[in-house]
């Protein structure tokens, strides 16, 4: 990748919970942004531009967050941009901010993403009947559960694979004090016995509904070199999209995801992501999306993803840990969830992941987000060393 070398120099996030009745949306994003600036050793006046992202407007009835949140994000007199790519928006927001630096337009950019799900109901937002159309009467799970069934038929994966991910990510979350769900007693049996919401998805296979925000400070090489803290250098970044529906579309293993992964790994000089990455933070809102995305992202051949999960390869002590932070299955402020993946990847690269820090190898980590009907993808690879 060309342009100015760019790094994450500050990371901040809220403690994600079901409902933050104690703060406004402005207060929520402020918490994350202030923590990221302190982490970077920068002040509000140092920021050149602000980029904000959130999930679809009807999810919380805020259609102009850039207007409402300008004071809280210190954006007066500065460029303020809003990014909008459904569930992948947290990732895209980070990439737009990074590209402002990489292109040499700005030196220090604050990226913030958030969701306050407690103020409304995302399932309603996804199920509004529209004129002329056959309604989707089953929420997000009703859209993705059939794709999971198709994956199971295609790969021959046994039914317990998803449950293994549901347990693994919740155990990882116990190492992360900012995760929403802390379920210390979770077991495979508990997942298997939890309510069957959208067969084949059970209650514990599904992400929670969270209030939370994530913020990143992106800086140019000149700025990052002068800051006291560690930097996570961007080695590769990519976005791809595709229509929700077209003839020949592979909805289970979308072309846009494969192409996005191919580009980000090529830029980062990665030929075998399983071997070359220390770990990955990947958008897995339903447990089965771990084996599905293992294949989509090229960590293994198509049809083999579930075998990696079953063998424990993606566990905290496996050879390629996925979602050491607990992932989307443990915290899901939708608009922020993608940026949490990107930020947690940066914290791993900076050696700042605390109790969920994975043992560094080459120092390269993947952050990933997807959204819509598996049609928007955003990814970056960050590393401890400069590219």
């Amino acid at each position, binding site marked *: 990748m060309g342009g100015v070398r760019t790094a994450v120099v500050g990371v901040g996030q809220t403690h994600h919970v079901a409902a933050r009745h104690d703060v406004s949306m402005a207060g929520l994003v402020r918490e994350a942004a202030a923590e990221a600036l302190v982490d970077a050793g920068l002040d509000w006046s140092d920021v050149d531009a602000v980029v904000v992202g959130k999930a679809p407007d009807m999810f919380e009835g805020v259609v102009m967050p850039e207007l409402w949140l300008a004071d*809280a994000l210190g954006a*007066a007199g500065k460029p303020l941009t809003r990014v909008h790519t459904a569930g992948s928006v947290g990732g895209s927001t980070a990439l737009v901010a990074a590209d402002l630096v990489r292109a040499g337009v700005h030196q220090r950019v604050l990226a913030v993403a958030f969701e306050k799900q407690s103020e409304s109901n995302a399932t309603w937002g996804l199920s509004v009947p529209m004129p*002329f159309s056959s309604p989707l*009467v089953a929420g997000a799970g009703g859209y993705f*559960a059939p794709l999971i069934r*198709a994956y199971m038929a295609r790969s021959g994966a046994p039914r317990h694979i998803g449950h293994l991910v549901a347990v693994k990510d919740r155990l990882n979350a116990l190492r992360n004090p900012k995760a929403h769900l802390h379920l210390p007693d979770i077991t495979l049996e508990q997942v298997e016995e939890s309510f069957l*919401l*959208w067969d084949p998805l059970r209650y514990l296979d599904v992400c929670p509904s969270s209030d939370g925000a994530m913020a990143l400070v992106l800086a140019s090489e000149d700025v990052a070199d002068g800051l006291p803290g560690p930097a996570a250098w961007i080695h590769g970044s990519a976005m791809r999209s595709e229509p929700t529906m077209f003839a020949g579309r592979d909805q289970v293993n979308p072309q846009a995801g494969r192409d996005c992964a191919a580009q980000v790994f090529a830029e980062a000089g990665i030929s075998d992501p399983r071997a070359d990455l220390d770990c990955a933070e990947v958008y897995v809102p339903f447990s089965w999306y771990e084996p599905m995305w293992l294949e989509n992202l090229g960590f293994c051949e198509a049809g083999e993803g579930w075998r990696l999960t079953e063998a424990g390869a993606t566990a905290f002590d496996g050879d390629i840990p996925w979602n050491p932070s607990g992932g989307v299955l443990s915290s899901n402020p939708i608009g922020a969830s993608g940026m949490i993946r990107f930020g947690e990847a940066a914290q791993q690269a900076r050696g700042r992941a605390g109790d969920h820090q994975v043992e560094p190898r080459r120092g390269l980590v993947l952050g990933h987000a997807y959204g819509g009907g598996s049609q928007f993808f955003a990814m970056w690879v960050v590393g401890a060393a400069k590219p």
Partner: protein
Amino acid sequence: MDADTLVERHVLEYPGGYTRSLGPAESRFLTGLRDGRIVGVRLGDGRVMVPPAEYDPETARPVDEYVEVGPAGVVTAWTWVSEPRPGKHPLERPFAFALVRPDGADTAMLHVLDADGPASLRVGMRVAPRWRAERRGHVTDIEAWVPLAEGEPVPAPPAPAPPAPAPPAGADPGEAAEEPGPVTRMVSPVRLEYEINAGIAPTRYLHALAERRIVGQKAAGSDHVYVPPRGSDPTTGAPTEVEVEVGQDGTVTTFCVVNIPGLSDLAPPVPYVCAQILLDGADTPWFGLVQGLDADDVRMGLRVRAVWDDDPAPDARSIKWFEPNGEPDAPYESYKDYA
């Protein structure tokens, strides 16, 4: 736009409204209004802002020195509403929307000005709030601002709303006497009402549905039949000008069984089956319900047929659901590339 395209009025409204947690500044402001006071905040440069913000718009520092302002103030700008719409505008008689700067504040707030007519209005005129007797912690606790003549005293807010009905016998009497707590949340209704135009190509397909026919479209020279069509082939952008009637039978390529009640007003009782159905002759799936057999008996490859509404309209909901057509299951190979 083609005069014959289908248009439907649509309302997007979250039932009950969004529930906002206010944070410290809005909470102070709305609690003040409930109590008949107007509260602003002092910014870093000494100016007083009303309504108060949580963060200084100049410096981004948190601000928390709250100060009472007003209640009287001056009009800094106004616009006359000569034909108010009942239920849409805050007053039923002609009025002005005005920017009012309360005494002691350095910023103005947008509100309603109730005056005799535009000739009586001028920038710089003094006004005072006309409070509602029943106040709930909302910006409309001030019903309107009214002109204040020179030397006229500022009217006091009426006594707060009467307390809630007496607690049942045996309740702690101290509880009932307590001051009401701060206002910390509000309901924010959001309603978007607009017309959706189906577009030229979908209109043709929708009219066919009213005749119990399912008509897809494809681009000239392409084999890909789109149902529902959107007017262009998403892989090439070419217009889908060729119409192809597809079958009313199809194959369940994949599905889920929904056990959660109440996901949509249109959902049938649980458990129900949401499926992707590949209609015979189509290349994209139809999202539909499968009924007419136990949810447990639905399977990939099941052959189904559309069940129509008794009075079909140009709307996809004219196909109520799909049910088994009695044919043997389709082999996996025949539909695996569509799942």
